[in-house]
């Protein structure tokens, strides 16, 4: 078994936290994990991506090849499409519907949503609203982990344990908000 995920978003959206939670959850699930991140200059409001690879065998490459990803998981709709050539034909694209319009030539949103809906397998998630309902806009990224969780080869309890472990130093309230956000993402179609 091998499951490759391209994570996408804009610097500051918590893409690396998403990667960290899924990676730790997968490890608790007994899988091998390799996770490539972008640090440095790009994190300043630029396009950010991470490659996350899960497998029950040794993983040799840190990067995912084209037409090979099982999932694109994005915090932002146009960032989801930026890496489309990495998605395999039967792969799923899951993205937040909330745009980050920090560039002057942001394309028409309805057109972007249309392109995403036209894919063989996709899911649009109103992540910001769900995060608000969970208690904090800052938990948007955990809504997205929840939305991805039904596809990932990782048991729910292991993802929740990873959330608890990674957020525990920020206090029980933050853990609880992120746990709620996860459930909102998981349960809302």
């Amino acid at each position, binding site marked *: 078994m091998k499951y490759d995920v391209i994570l996408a978003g804009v610097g500051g959206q918590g893409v690396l936290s998403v990667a960290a939670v899924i990676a730790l959850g997968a490890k608790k699930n007994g899988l091998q994990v390799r996770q490539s991140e972008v*640090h*440095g200059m*790009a994190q300043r409001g630029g396009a950010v991506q991470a490659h996350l690879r899960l497998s029950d065998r040794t993983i040799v490459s*840190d990067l995912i090849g084209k037409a090979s990803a099982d999932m694109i998981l994005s915090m932002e709709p146009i960032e989801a499409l930026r890496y489309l050539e990495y998605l395999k034909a039967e792969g799923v694209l899951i993205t937040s519907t909330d745009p980050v319009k920090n560039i002057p030539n942001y394309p028409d949103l309805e057109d972007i949503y249309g392109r995403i809906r036209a894919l063989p397998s996709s899911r649009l998630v109103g992540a910001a609203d769900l995060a608000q309902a969970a208690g904090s806009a800052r938990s948007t990224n955990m809504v997205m982990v929840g939305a991805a969780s039904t596809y990932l080869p990782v048991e729910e309890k292991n993802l929740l344990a990873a959330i608890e472990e990674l957020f525990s130093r920020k206090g029980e309230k933050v853990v609880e908000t992120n746990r709620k956000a996860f459930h909102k993402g998981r349960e809302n179609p």
Partner: protein
Amino acid sequence: MPEMVLLGDEALAMGAIDAGVSAAYAYPGTPSSEIMEYLQASAARYGDYVAQWCSNEKTAYEAAAGVSLVGRRVLVSMKHVGLNVAADPFINSALLAINGGLVLAVADDPGMHSSQNEQDSRFYADFARIICLEPRTQEEVYRMTREAFDLSEAFHIPVMVRLTTRIAHSRAVVRTGERRAQNPVNKSTEKAGWMLLPATARKLWAELLAAQGKFLEYAEDSPYNSLELNVKFTDFGVITAGLGWNYYMENRDELPVQPSHLHISVYPIPAGKIRQLAERVERIVVIEEGFSFVERALLGILPPSVKISGKEDGALPRTGELTPDNVRGILGLEPKQGIEGSAVEIPGRPPQLCAGCPHRDSYDALNQALAGFDPKLVTSDIGCYTLGYLPPYQAIETCLCMGASVGMAKGASQAGFHPAVAVIGDSTFLHSGITPLVDAVASGANMTLLILDNSTTAMTGGQRTILTSSRLEKLVHGLGVDPDHVKLIVPLRKHTGENAGIIRREIEYRGVSVIIALRDCIQTLKDRKKKEADQ
């Protein structure tokens, strides 16, 4: 063995800790910064070692030499271009009678994710005539770092561990071993071994050259340089180096026959193993991350009858990183096609200055101050503020290397150009801007230096600047800049007009003037407030 999930950088730090490192020095630089950050964050847990940021890579390297001299193990880490700054002590230290293990960890950035060039540090190791280790997994990073310390002490040379972006910034499980105790203080007894006077240096150079055979023997015998022969297939053989191995292995199962394969992780280049491979095949394909270091060396190792294919003949791209995709062609594999409708035009999203960033207000003021000057010159430097080249500010025109803005403005002004303004960050100024400012003062250059003091090394993640802001102004005074022309401004939007006036007057002043724009980095400030709230 305990298992940890670590970035390549963190695995390197953990390897050094478990090798009994007593001190570590560095200057921040992507993709190497997380080595020192991990050492600092782990100090409380793993014991008593020094882990410090330094003014620049050269001072870091020199401090490391001192630690080695008195017998203790030391790590010095930097990004590839940092090694240019540290090249003087690095190259010379290969001649020294290294005592405590001295390991240089250097992280290259092919693809220039966050760099000015994509130079390949293996050339530096070769230039200095020392051993270089190049891991391909996070666990190898850990193991090779430990081994590097042993090698350094066994051969009395500094040993380089070369990382590249994708291994430095990728996480995987690492199984760690037992921690070795630190060396006691035990000063080197090699009297002439640390003295590079011509008479002693000639002897030390001859000794280093004589030791090359031992280094080569080590590389030839190392299990990391593994040769697998397939005697039935002679069309071509594969040599991989660094992450070239990872991308080759990602694709190998799709090949109809598995060719003979030599992987190189330990340098000097194992020429004997290369010849063994070449005897069996008609053509050699070289897949290596970085420049064509191995590929070019093959020309001196192999007879011309063996065809060599790689970056030099264009079969692999000569710029940028290797990927699982761009190594397919050289292996005779078809490219993989993305799903239908992939070709959507998505606008680029380049990095930009944060909302609330003090540089925004500094650049607004500078642009206002320079309005009406045509032509004008604004040299600049390396940091978040380099983004001021891009719209909407378009305030700066140059970025060469750390500190170059100051010397370039001085040179331009001496060539008769006015106005010449240099823009530099506080950390970059302390790294390499002080000495050119001394030059400018000494020559009475007609230039203005704008120091953007956000009290942090922001671009690499907000490491503390080596000198507090309160001492920066005194430092500038001490260098001999006329105190009447050292001005402090606070870059806030409400002050922009006033600040522009101050900058304009200093540009019009005939001589060296310095303006320090002092306001905290918005990210560092947020992080600090969060930490204070947590406590």
